Protein backbone atom coordinates (compact mmCIF):
# COMPACT_ATOMS: atom_id res chain seq x y z
CA UNK A 1 0.00 0.00 0.00
CA UNK A 2 1.30 3.47 -0.87
CA UNK A 3 2.53 5.35 2.18
CA UNK A 4 0.38 8.42 2.90
CA UNK A 5 3.45 10.54 3.35
CA UNK A 6 6.96 9.87 2.13
CA UNK A 7 9.77 12.38 2.36
CA UNK A 8 13.36 12.06 1.37
CA UNK A 9 15.99 14.42 2.80
CA UNK A 10 13.30 17.08 2.90
CA UNK A 11 14.47 20.57 3.81
CA UNK A 12 12.90 24.00 3.90
CA UNK A 13 14.68 27.29 4.34
CA UNK A 14 13.12 30.71 4.89
CA UNK A 15 15.78 33.25 4.08
CA UNK A 16 18.58 32.36 6.49
CA UNK A 17 16.40 30.32 8.84
CA UNK A 18 16.38 26.59 8.31
CA UNK A 19 12.85 25.52 9.25
CA UNK A 20 13.20 21.86 8.35
CA UNK A 21 16.40 19.84 7.95
CA UNK A 22 16.90 16.52 6.25
CA UNK A 23 13.59 14.91 7.15
CA UNK A 24 13.18 11.38 5.82
CA UNK A 25 9.90 9.72 6.71
CA UNK A 26 7.52 7.07 5.49
CA UNK A 27 4.11 6.92 7.09
CA UNK A 28 1.94 3.88 6.36
CA UNK A 29 -1.74 4.28 5.50
CA UNK A 30 -4.73 3.98 7.87
CA UNK A 31 -2.96 5.54 10.83
CA UNK A 32 -3.73 8.46 13.05
CA UNK A 33 -0.39 10.15 13.09
CA UNK A 34 0.56 12.60 15.80
CA UNK A 35 3.21 15.18 14.99
CA UNK A 36 4.62 16.54 18.24
CA UNK A 37 7.26 19.09 18.96
CA UNK A 38 7.82 22.43 20.65
CA UNK A 39 6.77 25.68 19.00
CA UNK A 40 9.03 26.53 16.09
CA UNK A 41 10.16 22.94 15.62
CA UNK A 42 9.00 22.86 11.99
CA UNK A 43 5.63 21.12 12.40
CA UNK A 44 3.67 23.71 10.42
CA UNK A 45 6.38 23.77 7.77
CA UNK A 46 6.15 20.01 7.34
CA UNK A 47 2.34 20.06 7.15
CA UNK A 48 2.33 23.03 4.75
CA UNK A 49 4.75 21.12 2.54
CA UNK A 50 2.48 18.08 2.71
CA UNK A 51 -0.51 20.15 1.62
CA UNK A 52 1.46 21.88 -1.13
CA UNK A 53 0.98 25.35 0.34
CA UNK A 54 4.75 25.81 0.10
CA UNK A 55 7.42 24.11 -1.96
CA UNK A 56 10.50 22.39 -0.49
CA UNK A 57 13.95 23.93 -0.75
CA UNK A 58 15.70 20.56 -0.84
CA UNK A 59 14.64 16.92 -1.00
CA UNK A 60 11.33 15.48 -2.10
CA UNK A 61 7.91 14.94 -0.62
CA UNK A 62 5.12 12.68 -1.83
CA UNK A 63 1.63 12.51 -0.44
CA UNK A 64 -0.41 9.42 -1.37
CA UNK A 65 2.21 8.79 -4.03
CA UNK A 66 1.99 12.17 -5.80
CA UNK A 67 3.40 15.64 -5.54
CA UNK A 68 1.30 17.69 -3.07
CA UNK A 69 -1.36 19.93 -4.68
CA UNK A 70 -0.18 18.77 -8.12
CA UNK A 71 -3.68 19.02 -9.62
CA UNK A 72 -7.36 19.02 -8.74
CA UNK A 73 -7.43 15.23 -8.37
CA UNK A 74 -4.60 15.29 -5.86
CA UNK A 75 -6.23 18.19 -3.99
CA UNK A 76 -9.44 16.16 -3.72
CA UNK A 77 -7.55 13.33 -2.01
CA UNK A 78 -6.17 15.46 0.82
CA UNK A 79 -8.14 17.51 3.33
CA UNK A 80 -6.05 20.15 5.07
CA UNK A 81 -7.14 22.30 8.00
CA UNK A 82 -4.58 25.04 8.48
CA UNK A 83 -3.51 26.50 11.79
CA UNK A 84 -6.12 28.77 13.44
CA UNK A 85 -8.76 27.10 11.22
CA UNK A 86 -9.30 29.95 8.75
CA UNK A 87 -12.85 30.60 7.54
CA UNK A 88 -14.40 33.47 5.57
CA UNK A 89 -15.77 35.80 8.27
CA UNK A 90 -18.40 37.31 5.96
CA UNK A 91 -19.79 34.02 4.74
CA UNK A 92 -22.34 32.09 6.76
CA UNK A 93 -21.95 28.50 7.87
CA UNK A 94 -24.35 27.52 5.08
CA UNK A 95 -22.27 29.46 2.54
CA UNK A 96 -19.21 27.50 3.59
CA UNK A 97 -21.04 24.25 2.93
CA UNK A 98 -22.14 25.55 -0.48
CA UNK A 99 -18.51 26.52 -1.14
CA UNK A 100 -17.45 22.98 -0.27
CA UNK A 101 -20.18 21.47 -2.44
CA UNK A 102 -19.25 23.57 -5.46
CA UNK A 103 -15.49 23.21 -5.24
CA UNK A 104 -15.30 19.49 -4.45
CA UNK A 105 -16.63 16.89 -6.87
CA UNK A 106 -16.69 14.22 -4.16
CA UNK A 107 -18.65 16.36 -1.68
CA UNK A 108 -20.73 14.37 0.80
CA UNK A 109 -23.59 16.70 1.63
CA UNK A 110 -25.41 14.26 3.88
CA UNK A 111 -22.31 13.96 6.02
CA UNK A 112 -21.78 17.72 6.13
CA UNK A 113 -25.37 18.48 7.15
CA UNK A 114 -25.30 15.73 9.74
CA UNK A 115 -22.10 17.09 11.33
CA UNK A 116 -23.38 20.63 11.37
CA UNK A 117 -26.55 19.51 13.13
CA UNK A 118 -24.66 17.31 15.55
CA UNK A 119 -22.34 20.06 16.74
CA UNK A 120 -25.21 22.55 16.81
CA UNK A 121 -24.02 25.08 14.22
CA UNK A 122 -26.65 27.48 12.88
CA UNK A 123 -26.35 27.51 9.04
CA UNK A 124 -27.38 31.17 8.86
CA UNK A 125 -24.72 32.39 11.27
CA UNK A 126 -21.76 34.34 9.91
CA UNK A 127 -18.55 32.35 10.32
CA UNK A 128 -16.83 35.44 11.73
CA UNK A 129 -19.07 35.20 14.79
CA UNK A 130 -18.37 31.59 15.65
CA UNK A 131 -16.37 30.65 18.74
CA UNK A 132 -12.97 29.04 18.26
CA UNK A 133 -14.42 25.61 18.92
CA UNK A 134 -17.30 26.10 16.48
CA UNK A 135 -14.91 27.41 13.83
CA UNK A 136 -12.71 24.35 14.24
CA UNK A 137 -15.80 22.13 13.87
CA UNK A 138 -16.79 23.98 10.70
CA UNK A 139 -13.29 23.62 9.24
CA UNK A 140 -13.27 19.92 10.19
CA UNK A 141 -16.66 19.41 8.52
CA UNK A 142 -15.48 21.17 5.38
CA UNK A 143 -12.30 19.10 5.17
CA UNK A 144 -14.01 15.79 5.94
CA UNK A 145 -17.06 16.17 3.69
CA UNK A 146 -14.87 16.34 0.60
CA UNK A 147 -14.14 12.70 1.49
CA UNK A 148 -10.36 12.77 1.29
CA UNK A 149 -8.06 9.81 1.77
CA UNK A 150 -5.84 11.81 4.11
CA UNK A 151 -6.87 14.50 6.58
CA UNK A 152 -4.18 16.88 7.80
CA UNK A 153 -4.69 19.18 10.80
CA UNK A 154 -2.17 21.81 11.84
CA UNK A 155 -2.54 22.49 15.58
CA UNK A 156 -6.32 22.06 15.44
CA UNK A 157 -6.87 22.43 19.17
CA UNK A 158 -4.18 24.97 20.11
CA UNK A 159 -6.66 27.83 20.40
CA UNK A 160 -9.42 25.86 22.12
CA UNK A 161 -10.34 25.59 25.78
CA UNK A 162 -10.00 22.14 27.40
CA UNK A 163 -13.65 21.20 26.95
CA UNK A 164 -13.71 22.26 23.29
CA UNK A 165 -10.47 20.34 22.79
CA UNK A 166 -12.03 17.16 24.06
CA UNK A 167 -15.18 17.64 21.99
CA UNK A 168 -13.18 18.37 18.87
CA UNK A 169 -10.90 15.38 19.24
CA UNK A 170 -13.91 13.19 19.94
CA UNK A 171 -15.58 14.38 16.70
CA UNK A 172 -12.35 13.73 14.90
CA UNK A 173 -12.14 10.17 16.13
CA UNK A 174 -15.75 9.53 15.12
CA UNK A 175 -14.90 10.75 11.64
CA UNK A 176 -11.88 8.55 11.40
CA UNK A 177 -13.85 5.50 12.43
CA UNK A 178 -16.67 6.34 10.02
CA UNK A 179 -14.68 7.39 6.95
CA UNK A 180 -11.64 5.14 7.20
CA UNK A 181 -9.23 7.95 6.44
CA UNK A 182 -5.63 8.43 7.43
CA UNK A 183 -5.08 11.39 9.70
CA UNK A 184 -2.03 13.51 10.35
CA UNK A 185 -2.36 16.05 13.12
CA UNK A 186 0.12 18.19 14.98
CA UNK A 187 0.27 19.69 18.43
CA UNK A 188 2.89 21.20 20.67
CA UNK A 189 1.21 19.34 23.53
CA UNK A 190 1.60 15.60 23.62
CA UNK A 191 -1.41 15.36 25.93
CA UNK A 192 -3.68 16.40 23.04
CA UNK A 193 -2.53 13.56 20.84
CA UNK A 194 -1.77 10.80 23.32
CA UNK A 195 -5.29 9.43 23.35
CA UNK A 196 -5.94 9.62 19.63
CA UNK A 197 -2.82 8.75 17.70
CA UNK A 198 -1.34 5.34 16.94
CA UNK A 199 1.73 6.60 15.10
CA UNK A 200 4.04 9.29 16.38
CA UNK A 201 6.55 11.70 14.90
CA UNK A 202 8.60 13.86 17.24
CA UNK A 203 10.00 16.93 15.58
CA UNK A 204 12.42 19.29 17.32
CA UNK A 205 15.05 21.77 16.22
CA UNK A 206 13.90 21.34 12.57
CA UNK A 207 14.72 17.58 12.55
CA UNK A 208 12.80 14.37 13.18
CA UNK A 209 13.84 12.95 16.53
CA UNK A 210 11.61 9.91 16.57
CA UNK A 211 9.06 8.28 14.29
CA UNK A 212 7.13 5.06 14.51
CA UNK A 213 4.02 3.21 15.60
CA UNK A 214 3.25 4.07 19.20
CA UNK A 215 3.10 0.48 20.43
CA UNK A 216 6.40 -0.46 18.84
CA UNK A 217 8.02 2.66 20.24
CA UNK A 218 6.75 1.92 23.73
CA UNK A 219 7.99 -1.65 23.49
CA UNK A 220 11.46 -0.54 22.47
CA UNK A 221 12.08 2.09 25.14
CA UNK A 222 13.16 1.44 28.70
CA UNK A 223 14.30 3.17 31.81
CA UNK A 224 17.39 1.68 33.42
CA UNK A 225 18.22 2.61 36.99
CA UNK A 226 21.45 1.48 38.65
CA UNK A 227 24.12 2.56 41.06
CA UNK A 228 26.44 5.12 39.62
CA UNK A 229 29.08 3.50 37.48
CA UNK A 230 27.26 0.15 37.01
CA UNK A 231 25.96 1.20 33.63
CA UNK A 232 29.30 2.51 32.46
CA UNK A 233 29.70 1.39 29.72
CA UNK A 234 25.99 0.82 28.94
CA UNK A 235 24.87 -2.68 27.90
CA UNK A 236 25.25 -3.55 24.20
CA UNK A 237 22.47 -3.20 21.61
CA UNK A 238 20.96 -0.04 23.02
CA UNK A 239 20.97 3.65 22.20
CA UNK A 240 21.13 5.98 25.18
CA UNK A 241 18.64 8.80 24.72
CA UNK A 242 19.08 10.49 28.05
CA UNK A 243 21.29 9.95 31.05
CA UNK A 244 20.60 11.43 34.47
CA UNK A 245 23.07 11.16 37.32
CA UNK A 246 22.72 11.83 40.98
CA UNK A 247 25.60 11.35 43.43
CA UNK A 248 24.82 7.64 43.88
CA UNK A 249 22.56 6.62 41.04
CA UNK A 250 22.37 6.69 37.27
CA UNK A 251 19.13 6.68 35.27
CA UNK A 252 19.23 5.97 31.56
CA UNK A 253 16.41 6.31 29.07
CA UNK A 254 17.34 3.93 26.29
CA UNK A 255 16.10 2.55 23.04
CA UNK A 256 16.49 -1.16 22.61
CA UNK A 257 17.68 -1.49 19.05
CA UNK A 258 18.06 -5.27 19.02
CA UNK A 259 15.10 -6.42 21.10
CA UNK A 260 17.32 -8.31 23.52
CA UNK A 261 17.62 -5.85 26.43
CA UNK A 262 15.21 -7.70 28.70
CA UNK A 263 17.33 -10.84 28.36
CA UNK A 264 20.26 -9.39 30.24
CA UNK A 265 18.44 -6.66 32.18
CA UNK A 266 15.13 -8.08 33.42
CA UNK A 267 14.65 -5.08 35.75
CA UNK A 268 14.34 -2.62 32.88
CA UNK A 269 10.96 -0.88 33.03
CA UNK A 270 8.86 0.51 30.20
CA UNK A 271 8.13 4.21 29.89
CA UNK A 272 4.90 5.98 29.25
CA UNK A 273 4.58 7.98 26.04
CA UNK A 274 5.21 11.32 27.67
CA UNK A 275 8.44 10.27 29.38
CA UNK A 276 9.70 8.85 26.14
CA UNK A 277 8.91 11.96 24.10
CA UNK A 278 10.36 14.25 26.77
CA UNK A 279 13.62 12.33 26.67
CA UNK A 280 13.90 12.95 22.94
CA UNK A 281 12.91 16.60 23.24
CA UNK A 282 15.45 17.02 26.03
CA UNK A 283 18.15 15.55 23.86
CA UNK A 284 17.23 17.84 20.94
CA UNK A 285 17.25 20.91 23.16
CA UNK A 286 20.83 20.35 24.33
CA UNK A 287 23.54 22.49 22.81
CA UNK A 288 25.42 20.74 20.06
CA UNK A 289 28.28 18.84 21.74
CA UNK A 290 31.75 20.15 21.08
CA UNK A 291 34.76 17.90 20.59
CA UNK A 292 36.07 18.20 24.13
CA UNK A 293 32.74 17.88 25.94
CA UNK A 294 33.08 14.76 28.10
CA UNK A 295 29.59 13.29 28.20
CA UNK A 296 27.38 14.84 25.54
CA UNK A 297 24.25 12.93 26.52
CA UNK A 298 24.31 13.83 30.17
CA UNK A 299 21.58 15.91 31.75
CA UNK A 300 22.15 16.90 35.35
CA UNK A 301 19.13 17.41 37.50
Amino acid at each position, binding site marked *: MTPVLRTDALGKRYGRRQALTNVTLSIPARRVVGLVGPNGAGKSTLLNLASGMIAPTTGTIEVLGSRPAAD*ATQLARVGFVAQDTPVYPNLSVGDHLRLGAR*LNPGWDDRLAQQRINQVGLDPTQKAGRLSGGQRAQLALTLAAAKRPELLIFDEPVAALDPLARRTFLQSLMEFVAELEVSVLLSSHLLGDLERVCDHLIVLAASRTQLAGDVEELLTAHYRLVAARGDLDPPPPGIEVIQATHTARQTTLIVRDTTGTLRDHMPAAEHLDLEEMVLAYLGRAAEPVPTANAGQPLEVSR
Partner: protein
Amino acid sequence: MIWLTWRQFRGQALVAVAVLATLATYLVVLGLRIRTAYEVNVDCAGCSVETAKDVFENAYFTPLLLTGFLVVLVPGIVGAFWGAPLLAREFEAGTHRLVWNQSISRTRWLAVKLGLVTLAGATLTGALSLLLTWAASPYDKLFDGRFDPLLFPARNIAPLGYAVFAVVAGVTVGLLVRRTVPAMAILLAGFVLLQILVPTMVRPHLQPAVTETVAWTAANARGLMINGTGEVRTENFAVPGAWVLTSNPQMFDAAGNPATQEQIESCPHSEPSVHKACIETKGFHMTLSYQPADRYWTFQWLEFGFYLVLAGLLAGFAFWRIPRGLN
Protein backbone atom coordinates in the same frame (compact mmCIF):
# COMPACT_ATOMS: atom_id res chain seq x y z
CA MET B 1 -15.80 28.85 -8.38
CA ILE B 2 -17.91 31.41 -10.22
CA TRP B 3 -20.42 31.13 -7.39
CA LEU B 4 -17.74 31.80 -4.75
CA THR B 5 -16.30 34.75 -6.68
CA TRP B 6 -19.76 36.23 -7.05
CA ARG B 7 -20.56 35.57 -3.38
CA GLN B 8 -17.41 37.44 -2.31
CA PHE B 9 -17.79 40.21 -4.88
CA ARG B 10 -21.52 40.89 -4.90
CA GLY B 11 -21.40 43.70 -2.31
CA GLN B 12 -18.88 45.64 -4.38
CA ALA B 13 -20.80 44.84 -7.56
CA LEU B 14 -23.98 46.33 -6.11
CA VAL B 15 -22.14 49.52 -5.16
CA ALA B 16 -20.74 49.68 -8.69
CA VAL B 17 -24.20 49.29 -10.23
CA ALA B 18 -25.54 52.10 -8.02
CA VAL B 19 -22.64 54.41 -8.94
CA LEU B 20 -23.01 53.57 -12.62
CA ALA B 21 -26.77 54.24 -12.54
CA THR B 22 -26.27 57.66 -10.93
CA LEU B 23 -23.49 58.72 -13.30
CA ALA B 24 -25.31 57.36 -16.34
CA THR B 25 -28.39 59.43 -15.48
CA TYR B 26 -26.23 62.52 -15.10
CA LEU B 27 -24.37 61.91 -18.36
CA VAL B 28 -27.56 61.32 -20.33
CA VAL B 29 -29.06 64.57 -19.03
CA LEU B 30 -25.80 66.40 -19.76
CA GLY B 31 -25.61 64.92 -23.27
CA LEU B 32 -29.18 65.97 -24.08
CA ARG B 33 -28.56 69.52 -22.84
CA ILE B 34 -25.38 69.80 -24.90
CA ARG B 35 -27.33 68.66 -27.97
CA THR B 36 -30.02 71.27 -27.38
CA ALA B 37 -27.36 73.95 -26.92
CA TYR B 38 -25.66 72.80 -30.12
CA GLU B 39 -28.87 73.19 -32.12
CA VAL B 40 -29.51 76.63 -30.67
CA ASN B 41 -25.97 78.03 -30.97
CA VAL B 42 -24.29 76.22 -33.86
CA ASP B 43 -26.87 74.74 -36.23
CA CYS B 44 -28.59 78.04 -36.85
CA ALA B 45 -28.62 80.60 -39.64
CA GLY B 46 -26.10 83.38 -39.11
CA CYS B 47 -24.66 82.02 -35.85
CA SER B 48 -21.02 82.79 -35.14
CA VAL B 49 -18.84 79.80 -34.30
CA GLU B 50 -16.73 82.01 -32.02
CA THR B 51 -19.77 83.01 -29.97
CA ALA B 52 -20.95 79.40 -29.80
CA LYS B 53 -17.52 78.35 -28.53
CA ASP B 54 -17.73 80.96 -25.78
CA VAL B 55 -21.19 79.78 -24.75
CA PHE B 56 -20.10 76.13 -24.74
CA GLU B 57 -16.89 76.79 -22.86
CA ASN B 58 -18.72 78.71 -20.14
CA ALA B 59 -21.47 76.13 -19.73
CA TYR B 60 -19.81 72.76 -20.32
CA PHE B 61 -16.05 72.99 -19.97
CA THR B 62 -16.02 72.28 -16.21
CA PRO B 63 -18.61 69.47 -16.10
CA LEU B 64 -16.98 67.68 -19.04
CA LEU B 65 -13.49 68.09 -17.59
CA LEU B 66 -14.55 66.76 -14.21
CA THR B 67 -16.47 63.77 -15.61
CA GLY B 68 -13.45 63.15 -17.83
CA PHE B 69 -11.23 63.00 -14.74
CA LEU B 70 -13.73 60.62 -13.21
CA VAL B 71 -13.57 58.29 -16.20
CA VAL B 72 -9.78 58.09 -15.79
CA LEU B 73 -10.06 57.83 -12.01
CA VAL B 74 -12.59 54.96 -12.01
CA PRO B 75 -10.03 52.43 -13.33
CA GLY B 76 -7.65 53.51 -10.56
CA ILE B 77 -10.36 53.11 -7.93
CA VAL B 78 -11.41 49.76 -9.36
CA GLY B 79 -7.79 48.59 -9.34
CA ALA B 80 -7.27 49.71 -5.77
CA PHE B 81 -10.56 48.55 -4.26
CA TRP B 82 -11.32 45.46 -6.34
CA GLY B 83 -7.96 44.34 -7.73
CA ALA B 84 -5.53 44.90 -4.87
CA PRO B 85 -7.61 43.21 -2.13
CA LEU B 86 -8.65 40.28 -4.32
CA LEU B 87 -5.68 38.16 -3.20
CA ALA B 88 -4.17 40.37 -0.49
CA ARG B 89 -7.26 40.07 1.71
CA GLU B 90 -7.18 36.28 1.41
CA PHE B 91 -3.54 36.25 2.50
CA GLU B 92 -4.21 38.67 5.34
CA ALA B 93 -7.11 36.62 6.71
CA GLY B 94 -5.38 33.32 5.94
CA THR B 95 -8.42 32.15 3.98
CA HIS B 96 -6.25 31.24 0.99
CA ARG B 97 -5.31 28.22 3.11
CA LEU B 98 -8.97 27.23 3.16
CA VAL B 99 -9.74 27.77 -0.50
CA TRP B 100 -6.46 26.37 -1.82
CA ASN B 101 -7.34 23.07 -0.20
CA GLN B 102 -10.58 22.57 -2.04
CA SER B 103 -10.48 20.35 -5.12
CA ILE B 104 -9.65 23.16 -7.51
CA SER B 105 -6.24 24.19 -8.73
CA ARG B 106 -4.89 27.59 -7.72
CA THR B 107 -4.49 28.49 -11.37
CA ARG B 108 -8.18 27.99 -11.99
CA TRP B 109 -9.08 29.79 -8.79
CA LEU B 110 -7.01 32.80 -9.88
CA ALA B 111 -8.29 32.65 -13.47
CA VAL B 112 -11.94 32.82 -12.42
CA LYS B 113 -11.43 35.52 -9.79
CA LEU B 114 -9.18 37.66 -11.98
CA GLY B 115 -11.34 37.12 -15.08
CA LEU B 116 -14.63 38.07 -13.48
CA VAL B 117 -13.35 41.11 -11.61
CA THR B 118 -11.44 42.38 -14.66
CA LEU B 119 -14.58 41.96 -16.71
CA ALA B 120 -16.61 43.89 -14.14
CA GLY B 121 -14.03 46.70 -13.99
CA ALA B 122 -13.83 46.96 -17.77
CA THR B 123 -17.62 46.95 -18.08
CA LEU B 124 -18.06 49.73 -15.53
CA THR B 125 -15.32 51.89 -17.04
CA GLY B 126 -16.37 51.13 -20.61
CA ALA B 127 -19.98 52.10 -19.91
CA LEU B 128 -18.89 55.39 -18.36
CA SER B 129 -16.42 56.15 -21.15
CA LEU B 130 -18.91 55.45 -23.93
CA LEU B 131 -21.61 57.53 -22.21
CA LEU B 132 -19.22 60.44 -21.78
CA THR B 133 -17.98 60.11 -25.37
CA TRP B 134 -21.59 60.29 -26.54
CA ALA B 135 -22.54 63.16 -24.21
CA ALA B 136 -19.51 65.25 -25.12
CA SER B 137 -19.42 64.53 -28.86
CA PRO B 138 -21.02 67.86 -30.02
CA TYR B 139 -18.65 69.75 -27.73
CA ASP B 140 -15.64 67.76 -28.95
CA LYS B 141 -16.69 68.34 -32.57
CA LEU B 142 -16.93 72.09 -32.00
CA PHE B 143 -13.51 72.39 -30.37
CA ASP B 144 -11.78 69.73 -32.48
CA GLY B 145 -9.29 68.88 -29.72
CA ARG B 146 -9.62 65.10 -29.43
CA PHE B 147 -5.88 64.65 -28.90
CA ASP B 148 -5.87 66.98 -25.89
CA PRO B 149 -4.15 65.12 -23.01
CA LEU B 150 -7.19 65.83 -20.84
CA LEU B 151 -9.72 64.53 -23.38
CA PHE B 152 -7.87 61.70 -25.09
CA PRO B 153 -7.72 59.35 -22.06
CA ALA B 154 -11.36 59.94 -21.14
CA ARG B 155 -12.98 59.01 -24.45
CA ASN B 156 -13.67 55.88 -26.49
CA ILE B 157 -11.62 52.75 -25.76
CA ALA B 158 -8.52 54.07 -23.95
CA PRO B 159 -10.22 53.86 -20.49
CA LEU B 160 -10.97 50.18 -21.10
CA GLY B 161 -7.24 49.55 -21.33
CA TYR B 162 -6.71 51.44 -18.07
CA ALA B 163 -9.38 49.37 -16.33
CA VAL B 164 -8.00 46.00 -17.44
CA PHE B 165 -4.49 47.09 -16.50
CA ALA B 166 -5.49 48.50 -13.10
CA VAL B 167 -7.35 45.37 -11.98
CA VAL B 168 -4.62 42.98 -13.13
CA ALA B 169 -1.88 45.18 -11.64
CA GLY B 170 -3.82 45.42 -8.36
CA VAL B 171 -4.14 41.65 -8.16
CA THR B 172 -0.44 41.14 -8.94
CA VAL B 173 0.70 43.74 -6.41
CA GLY B 174 -1.61 42.08 -3.85
CA LEU B 175 0.01 38.73 -4.63
CA LEU B 176 3.48 40.16 -4.06
CA VAL B 177 2.80 42.43 -1.07
CA ARG B 178 0.14 40.18 0.54
CA ARG B 179 -1.27 43.07 2.53
CA THR B 180 -4.33 44.99 1.46
CA VAL B 181 -3.61 48.61 2.35
CA PRO B 182 0.00 48.74 1.09
CA ALA B 183 -1.11 46.96 -2.09
CA MET B 184 -3.82 49.57 -2.66
CA ALA B 185 -1.35 52.41 -2.10
CA ILE B 186 1.25 50.93 -4.44
CA LEU B 187 -1.35 50.32 -7.14
CA LEU B 188 -2.70 53.88 -6.95
CA ALA B 189 0.78 55.40 -6.99
CA GLY B 190 1.78 53.29 -9.98
CA PHE B 191 -1.43 54.03 -11.85
CA VAL B 192 -1.09 57.80 -11.36
CA LEU B 193 2.58 57.67 -12.36
CA LEU B 194 1.69 55.90 -15.62
CA GLN B 195 -1.07 58.43 -16.29
CA ILE B 196 1.61 61.13 -16.14
CA LEU B 197 4.43 59.28 -17.90
CA VAL B 198 2.45 57.82 -20.80
CA PRO B 199 0.99 61.09 -22.21
CA THR B 200 4.28 62.95 -21.81
CA MET B 201 6.91 60.35 -22.68
CA VAL B 202 5.27 57.40 -24.46
CA ARG B 203 2.18 58.45 -26.39
CA PRO B 204 3.83 61.13 -28.64
CA HIS B 205 6.30 58.52 -29.89
CA LEU B 206 3.88 55.68 -30.62
CA GLN B 207 3.93 56.75 -34.27
CA PRO B 208 6.67 58.77 -36.02
CA ALA B 209 5.39 62.35 -36.08
CA VAL B 210 4.87 64.28 -39.31
CA THR B 211 7.31 67.20 -39.55
CA GLU B 212 6.23 69.87 -42.03
CA THR B 213 6.61 73.48 -42.91
CA VAL B 214 3.24 75.17 -42.70
CA ALA B 215 2.11 78.67 -43.56
CA TRP B 216 1.15 80.98 -40.72
CA THR B 217 -2.61 81.61 -40.84
CA ALA B 218 -4.61 83.94 -38.66
CA ALA B 219 -7.25 81.28 -38.00
CA ASN B 220 -4.83 78.76 -36.48
CA ALA B 221 -2.64 81.01 -34.33
CA ARG B 222 -3.60 82.09 -30.88
CA GLY B 223 -0.98 84.86 -30.56
CA LEU B 224 2.63 85.89 -31.00
CA MET B 225 5.53 86.01 -28.59
CA ILE B 226 8.72 88.00 -29.01
CA ASN B 227 11.48 87.03 -26.60
CA GLY B 228 14.48 89.02 -25.37
CA THR B 229 16.77 87.97 -28.22
CA GLY B 230 14.21 89.13 -30.79
CA GLU B 231 12.98 85.67 -31.87
CA VAL B 232 9.38 85.69 -32.98
CA ARG B 233 7.38 82.66 -32.00
CA THR B 234 3.76 81.79 -32.50
CA GLU B 235 1.80 80.66 -29.50
CA ASN B 236 0.06 77.25 -29.69
CA PHE B 237 -0.32 77.01 -33.42
CA ALA B 238 -3.11 74.56 -34.25
CA VAL B 239 -3.39 72.13 -37.13
CA PRO B 240 -7.08 71.18 -37.45
CA GLY B 241 -7.82 68.04 -35.46
CA ALA B 242 -4.14 67.15 -35.16
CA TRP B 243 -1.93 66.73 -32.12
CA VAL B 244 0.76 69.41 -32.46
CA LEU B 245 3.90 68.37 -30.62
CA THR B 246 5.92 71.55 -31.25
CA SER B 247 4.91 74.22 -28.81
CA ASN B 248 5.55 77.85 -29.73
CA PRO B 249 7.43 77.30 -33.03
CA GLN B 250 9.74 80.02 -34.35
CA MET B 251 8.42 81.95 -37.37
CA PHE B 252 10.30 82.55 -40.61
CA ASP B 253 9.51 85.05 -43.36
CA ALA B 254 8.92 84.23 -47.02
CA ALA B 255 12.65 84.48 -47.76
CA GLY B 256 13.44 81.87 -45.10
CA ASN B 257 15.02 84.28 -42.59
CA PRO B 258 13.86 84.39 -38.96
CA ALA B 259 10.97 86.79 -38.54
CA THR B 260 11.96 90.03 -36.81
CA GLN B 261 10.25 92.35 -34.39
CA GLU B 262 10.25 95.08 -37.09
CA GLN B 263 8.35 92.89 -39.54
CA ILE B 264 5.67 92.29 -36.88
CA GLU B 265 5.52 95.92 -35.86
CA SER B 266 5.08 97.01 -39.48
CA CYS B 267 1.48 95.93 -39.00
CA PRO B 268 -0.37 98.68 -37.12
CA HIS B 269 -1.70 97.94 -33.65
CA SER B 270 -5.44 97.57 -33.86
CA GLU B 271 -8.18 95.00 -33.29
CA PRO B 272 -6.53 91.56 -32.77
CA SER B 273 -8.35 90.10 -35.79
CA VAL B 274 -7.26 92.93 -38.05
CA HIS B 275 -3.72 92.71 -36.73
CA LYS B 276 -3.61 88.94 -37.36
CA ALA B 277 -5.01 89.38 -40.87
CA CYS B 278 -2.25 91.88 -41.62
CA ILE B 279 0.43 89.48 -40.36
CA GLU B 280 -1.02 86.69 -42.48
CA THR B 281 -0.36 88.74 -45.63
CA LYS B 282 3.39 88.78 -44.83
CA GLY B 283 3.66 85.06 -45.69
CA PHE B 284 5.33 83.72 -42.53
CA HIS B 285 5.85 80.01 -42.10
CA MET B 286 7.23 77.62 -39.50
CA THR B 287 8.26 74.00 -39.03
CA LEU B 288 5.89 71.83 -37.00
CA SER B 289 5.88 68.27 -35.72
CA TYR B 290 2.44 66.81 -35.32
CA GLN B 291 0.31 63.69 -35.33
CA PRO B 292 -2.37 64.18 -38.01
CA ALA B 293 -6.07 64.07 -37.20
CA ASP B 294 -6.69 60.81 -39.07
CA ARG B 295 -4.41 58.98 -36.64
CA TYR B 296 -6.82 59.47 -33.74
CA TRP B 297 -8.13 55.91 -33.80
CA THR B 298 -4.66 54.50 -34.36
CA PHE B 299 -3.62 56.24 -31.18
CA GLN B 300 -6.69 55.09 -29.28
CA TRP B 301 -5.93 51.48 -30.22
CA LEU B 302 -2.23 51.91 -29.47
CA GLU B 303 -2.98 53.32 -26.03
CA PHE B 304 -5.48 50.54 -25.36
CA GLY B 305 -2.99 47.96 -26.64
CA PHE B 306 -0.10 49.37 -24.60
CA TYR B 307 -2.03 48.98 -21.35
CA LEU B 308 -3.36 45.60 -22.43
CA VAL B 309 0.20 44.36 -23.02
CA LEU B 310 1.27 45.62 -19.59
CA ALA B 311 -1.74 43.85 -18.07
CA GLY B 312 -0.87 40.68 -19.98
CA LEU B 313 2.70 40.70 -18.68
CA LEU B 314 1.55 41.17 -15.08
CA ALA B 315 -1.10 38.47 -15.42
CA GLY B 316 1.53 36.14 -16.88
CA PHE B 317 3.71 36.74 -13.85
CA ALA B 318 0.81 36.11 -11.45
CA PHE B 319 -0.11 32.84 -13.15
CA TRP B 320 3.52 31.77 -13.11
CA ARG B 321 3.82 32.63 -9.43
CA ILE B 322 0.61 31.27 -7.93
CA PRO B 323 1.11 27.49 -8.39
CA ARG B 324 4.55 27.78 -6.78
CA GLY B 325 3.00 28.42 -3.38
CA LEU B 326 3.96 30.99 -0.82
CA ASN B 327 7.57 30.72 0.13
